[in-house]
């Protein structure tokens, strides 16, 4: 093994009990296909996908059922064969607990594949646009949880050239092990995906950041790198083991840790010549390019004291979570809360009758001891512990103070939007203040204000445009009248009697207008 690469530690962070052993001991299990698959049209950041099937249509596995509508959007494919039985509102896994439009497929159990596009084993000679188009077709989004369309992320044209591809294999949140087992079992696919992406973006090297609590996965990756077919101009790939420190898997934190480059506040990694991808996303890219397969399944961790058989499952996207948990052995009697994602950044589900989406990496069936009753919130004593652990180097106690006082300008002055909501501050707060909830509240309020401002700006602009247009029309009308009159005058050349008559008519007209106006004022005041 090569000598340890130099690391650039980020500020703050927490040493947490990782609780990985509960779920990473056994290999990935497959689960049965549910009767109904529910596919929300919005599983990603960006525009909702547009259905291209109708109720009653038969669909086959891998068939496109909803098309990306905008540049920032992602297509959706049928995870299995069957028939579309419904397109309408259904509950989705979202912090709001609201419903959204979903395509519901009744599976036929045959699981028969649709015709897939040709594999591209020769991707090194393919055009970058074709590769991006394939990734876009496959509906791939960031599988680490953010669900940003990958095809958009890898389109680096017009930006600063990317020299380093960073693969996020840190999986720093406690409990989650889906990336861990994926790397152990599909290390070769990970490396294939990296080669494709490196080629696509023209990166000089690739660094895989992985926490030191996953030695088996790191070893599997190293073996896969060593076993890579040589002869191509493949870029060097290095597995960089980093200390287990939450949140080392934060994109900006990991990039700093591995490269020493600090992504600017409000900026993208591209600004420092880096592209960062989650390890599961990379495997999805390999599937799409080398096998022509769309993103229709993923590995999800089911764990926690409230789950009877914690482990990792390979699941079709759209599988209802209650079905999935039942397949995984069901709930134990200790179940208290169901959290989608990890314990630090995940959100609670009110109901398990929602589907698994592309972004679902973990279902934490938390027992009572894993979600301790929240203690009473006390006043902040400004101890500064939050600032000591903040990986974004913010002053959380000041953010809290201004968010609570609804002084949102001040909160933004203290860089509210640089908060990554990792939860470190709330974790250490001795006064048990739900700090992250305050920041979310402030962000939401600011967004709402901005929307309102945009709306009123638009209304004002419209109004001004209308007034200007009416003014212009009036001017034009007057100009036409004047021209006509001048033409008439010059033609007739007569004056005198006509003028007196005209003056009398005008005076009468004015009297009528004044009377009308008076009536209007009267009726207006009534």
């Amino acid at each position: 093994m090569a000598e340890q690469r130099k690391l650039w530690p980020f500020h703050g962070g927490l040493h947490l009990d990782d609780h990985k052993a509960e779920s990473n001991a056994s290999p990935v299990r497959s689960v049965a296909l549910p009767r109904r698959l529910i596919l929300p049209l919005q599983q990603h950041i960006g525009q909702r996908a547009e259905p291209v099937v109708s109720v009653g249509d038969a669909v086959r596995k891998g068939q496109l059922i909803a098309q990306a509508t905008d540049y920032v959007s992602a297509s959706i494919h049928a995870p299995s064969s069957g028939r579309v039985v419904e397109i309408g509102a259904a509950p989705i896994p979202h912090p709001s607990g609201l419903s959204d439009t979903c395509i519901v497929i009744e599976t036929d159990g045959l699981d028969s594949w649709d015709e897939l596009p040709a594999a591209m084993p020769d991707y090194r000679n393919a055009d970058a646009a074709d590769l991006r188009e394939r990734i876009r077709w496959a509906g791939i989004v960031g599988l680490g949880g953010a669900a940003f369309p990958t095809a958009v992320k890898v389109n680096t044209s017009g930006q600063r050239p990317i020299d380093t591809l960073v693969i996020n294999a840190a999986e720093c949140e406690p409990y989650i092990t889906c990336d861990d087992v994926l790397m152990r079992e599909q290390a070769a696919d990970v490396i294939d995906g990296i080669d494709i992406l490196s080629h696509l973006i023209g990166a000089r090297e690739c660094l895989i950041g992985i926490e030191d609590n996953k030695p088996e996965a790191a070893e599997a990756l190293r073996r896969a790198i060593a076993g890579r077919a040589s002869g191509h101009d493949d870029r060097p790939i290095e597995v960089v083991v980093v200390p287990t420190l939450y949140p080392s898997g934060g994109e900006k934190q990991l990039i700093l840790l591995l490269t020493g480059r600090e992504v600017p506040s409000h900026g993208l990694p591209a600004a420092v010549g880096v592209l960062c991808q989650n390890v599961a996303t990379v495997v999805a890219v390999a599937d799409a390019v080398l096998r022509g397969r769309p993103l229709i399944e993923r590995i999800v961790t089911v764990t926690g004291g409230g789950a009877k058989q914690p482990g990792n499952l390979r699941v079709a996207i759209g599988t209802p979570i209650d079905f999935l948990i039942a397949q995984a052995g069901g709930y134990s009697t200790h179940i208290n809360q169901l959290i989608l994602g990890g314990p630090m950044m995940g959100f609670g589900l009110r109901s398990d009758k929602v589907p698994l989406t592309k972004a679902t990496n973990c279902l934490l069936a938390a027992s009572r001891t894993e979600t301790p009753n929240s203690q009473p919130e006390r006043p902040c004593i400004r101890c500064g512990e939050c600032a000591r652990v903040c990986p974004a180097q913010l002053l959380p106690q000041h953010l809290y103070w201004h968010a609570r006082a609804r002084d949102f300008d001040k909160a933004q002055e203290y860089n509210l939007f640089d908060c990554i909501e990792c939860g470190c501050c709330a974790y250490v707060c001795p006064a048990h203040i739900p700090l992250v909830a305050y920041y979310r509240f402030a962000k939401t309020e600011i967004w709402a204000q901005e929307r309102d401002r945009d709306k009123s700006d638009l209304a004002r602009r419209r109004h001004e445009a209308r007034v200007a247009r009416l003014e212009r029309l009036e001017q034009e009308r007057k100009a036409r009248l004047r021209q006509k009159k001048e033409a008439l005058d010059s033609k007739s050349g007569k004056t005198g009697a006509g003028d007196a008559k005209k003056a009398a008519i005008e005076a009468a007209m004015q009297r009528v207008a004044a009377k009308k106006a008076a009536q209007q004022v009267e009726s207006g005041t009534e």
Partner: protein
Amino acid sequence: MQFSISSSPHQSGQQSVTRVMGLVLLALVPGTLAMFWYFGWGPIINLGIATATAVAAEAAVLHLRGRAIGVTLIDLSAVVTAWLLALALPPLLPWWQTAMGSVFAIVVVKQLFGGIGHNPFNPAMAGYVLLLVSFPVTMTRWLPPDVVSGSALSLADSLHIIFSGTPPLGQTWDAISSATPLDQMRTELSQNRMIGEIRQSPLWGDFGGRGWEWIGNWYLLGGLFLIWRRVIGWRIPASMLAGLVLIAGLFWAIDPDTHPFPAFHLFSGGAILGAFFIATDPVSASTTPRGQLIYGALIGLLVFVIRTWGGYPDAVAFAVLLMNMAAPTIDHYTQPRIFGQRGRGDA
């Protein structure tokens, strides 16, 4: 199945305000025992009076404000305030003065500003200063440490003095009381005596007042414990002591006959207690890393200035209160650079 939901993060650490305050109290134990060792029962009786009145006053105000009493009292902050005040008071202060300082600290300085977390000033020091300016005679009437006087006051005598306000039968104040080393240093310097002569007095130990220097050491131990347990940061104590030593050292180097050795400043009055337990009160101190360095250093500087040219025997309380006022401004100008912002706010 339906579940309850809560906001992330869904885990939390073991830290609590009660634990923080409890650790502060624990760290005060060695210094308090040293006070008992050198000054007898007086400090312990003061501690009892201050704690009882502080807790009672806090409970009363919380009741008036319509707040839950038990939930707030359990945070132990009132006990910490009372304890710090008691340690700063002369051992034989009349009981009602101790009680008054304690009630003022809790009711006016803490609760009237909104309770824990909202007080702009350090309550214990504000209470101390109120007593010092109101009762300058009793507040400067200290005992000599037992190692100097050779005899200790009994518990009964101490109680008698504190609760009656008069010296024991057949004794006078002059016989039992003494000035603090800082006070004596100032008085004698003002009489144009040299440091070398002053140091001949039996009140002096190796580098500070006899007894006092050891109390300082025990506070130091407690303070280091707090830094180790991450209850306080190192910046404020270090910068305050460094600021004090630097300026004291400068003047000592210029004229060692009229300015005491810097260690004297550290170990004679409340400097160590102030540096680790009082200036570090998070509510009233600066919170940014660089701000804390400035805040601490300026307290150290002010302590020297007030001790050397001011009219009061010790200066920690005044220096801390003055810098409490400056803390928000210091914070404003010392905001740290955030992730991804190079150079901003480094002015």
